[in-house]
């Protein structure tokens, strides 16, 4: 491990060479929008919202999944980046069914927040209005696939922190869904411990506690980083 120095948005910053652009940016108070990233979980690189420009690379790189290196020059803001980030958000809205006004997470939703922060005031791509279902077979929780953005946070927290590995992503492309066990109803799951971690880390209203009305679902995902940090100390 060695210390590297680099530039983010023309600012000289430094960090360890096993850190990511996102981590160093955050340490220095530079905001890069994210959705699938959650401190304490492994990196999925699933949403691409954190894309940044790196000098010398013609491709845009995901800040959450890109290690820093000596002399790197990163820019986190540009017209091109805003354009792509907005497009990502628009597509997330268009490929599901998001009716915020009646959603349990209305007002406390990271997708919604990202849309507001990026100034997404209309959706430029046609809505798909997919026919997706709600699985409310679990005694305490439910999943509304209409609102799932496939960030796989639930999958990772269940596997990496709870150790249950109830969740997975099944099927491909437009058909992809998060599934419980072998695509059986959540309520029938043998592996689920009903800990509720997945519900808390889900950035949208897809995973919810039953009995919540519109706007009532407020999630706390900070526990993940503490749990992971404390366990790290024990071992």
């Amino acid at each position, binding site marked *: 491990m060695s210390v590297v120095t680099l530039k983010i948005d023309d600012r000289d910053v430094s960090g360890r060479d096993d850190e990511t652009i996102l981590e160093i940016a955050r340490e220095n108070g530079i905001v890069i929008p994210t959705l699938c990233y959650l401190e304490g979980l492994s990196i999925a690189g699933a949403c691409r919202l954190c894309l940044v420009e790196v000098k010398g690379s013609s491709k845009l790189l995901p800040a959450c999944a890109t290690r820093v290196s000596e002399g790197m020059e990163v820019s986190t803001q540009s017209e091109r980046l805003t354009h792509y980030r907005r497009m990502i958000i628009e597509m997330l809205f268009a490929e599901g069914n998001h009716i915020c006004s009646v959603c349990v997470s209305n007002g406390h939703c990271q997708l919604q927040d990202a849309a507001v922060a990026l100034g997404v005031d209309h959706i430029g791509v046609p809505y798909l209005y997919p026919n997706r279902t709600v699985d409310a077979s679990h*005694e305490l929780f439910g999943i509304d696939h209409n609102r799932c953005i496939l960030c796989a946070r639930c999958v990772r927290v269940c596997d990496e922190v709870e150790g249950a590995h109830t969740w997975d992503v099944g099927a491909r492309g437009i058909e992809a869904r998060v599934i419980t066990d072998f695509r059986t109803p959540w309520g029938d799951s043998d592996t689920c411990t009903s800990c509720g971690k997945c519900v808390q880390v889900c950035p949208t209203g897809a995973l919810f506690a039953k*009995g919540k009305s519109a706007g009532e679902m407020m999630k706390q995902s900070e526990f993940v980083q503490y749990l992971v940090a404390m366990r790290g100390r024990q071992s």
Partner: protein
Amino acid sequence: MTNTITIDPVTRIEGHSKITIQLDDAGKVTDAHFHVTQMRGFEKFVEGRPFHEMPSLTARTCGICPVSHLLASAKACDGLLAVRIPPTATKLRKIMNLAQIAQSHALSFFYLSAPDLLLGMDADPAQRNIFGLMNVNPELVRGGVKLRQTGQQIIELLGGKRVHPSWIVPGGVSEPLTEEKRDRILAMLPEAIGLAWTTYEWYAEEVERFKDEIESFANFPTLFMGLVSPRNTLAMYGGDLRVVASNGAVLEDRRPAEEYAEIIGEKVEPFSYLKSPYYKPIGYPSGIYRVGPLARLNIVGHPGTRLADAAFEGFKKLDRQSSFHYHYARLIEILYCLERTEQLLHEPDILSKHVRAEAKPNAEEGVGVSEAPRGTLIHHYRINEDGLITYANLIIATGHNSLAMDRGVLQVAKRFVNGAHLQESMLNRVEAVIRAYDPCLSCSTHAVGQMPLEINLVAPDGEVIDTVRR
């Protein structure tokens, strides 16, 4: 040859609709229909949704009276939870409903109907609106604006948002009332009650001028239905169903909400998307009934608050079959709502923090009934074992009245429409009949003032032989 006169759309009602008047060869009116051409499909698309979403989902049926849907829906959900909600929650929900009725009545009376009443049916349409009214009787208009504001402010103080508050939830309400908010509402009420009383006194004299309209405005015997309290007074939130015949005979009494399907049948007519409910024991279409302010006051012994009771003495002397008196009834109800709110806010437990019962669903079926500004509102849900909706039936107030509205249009058309030429004033009377019911046509259009009006004269072969626009 048969001619058809179509008035499309009816102005100054909430939503979109049109009226068709059928003429015979001699130019006499033979039939008339009030069409609702919108299809909302709510009952279908809520299937599969978690039942906890129902209050906020169904509140979107209507942008004008979302609170009414929230209440009926939350009550149906209480039924699914099979809980008795905390008494303070009941009282807070009641206050929200009363505020909603008061503000909606103020909108209907002052903004939508008063222009006809004050300026006359034959006044220039460009003037016959709330702005024209402002020139003639600014005090009345200001009072109306204030009354509407009061209702809206109460809703906002309670629910945080004027339209679609998500404060009403299955099991109760999400937040208790604070002392500060209670005192703010209490401080608003005396002035509002004063204004409502002044308006009532003014209108009680004014009403004499409308002899013609009173006689011909859907003035025919029908049944009346609504909720009534065990003390024989108005019940806007609780109470049981009562059906009263035109001669005052009580046909149904103390019918709990769950039994609505035993007394109400629903017929779908080809000319409208509005379902036409009827009183089952009498059958269709003779089982025609009316709901809303006029019906409510026709089924109770008295409203149940001081000033409303005093005003009710005047109401009792009226021809209580005439739909024209929906207006009169609305003014009495505004008084009742404000006075009742004051009473409830003085209840010792109104600030209790215990306002929500938590439970999992314990029943597969739930029915919620409450009084909306325009009449009895019924929500009926069934859920599967996971709590997802498998069936929903909504009977909205305007639906109950649809048969009566048809009949009313026919009656006025017969009297005021003659020949294939339409005068502005005669059209307006037909529209005004509809407006007397204050139909909320499942649409959030705020049509204050003049909307374009198109009338088509259609021959039996479908050819438009005359068109009038204004």
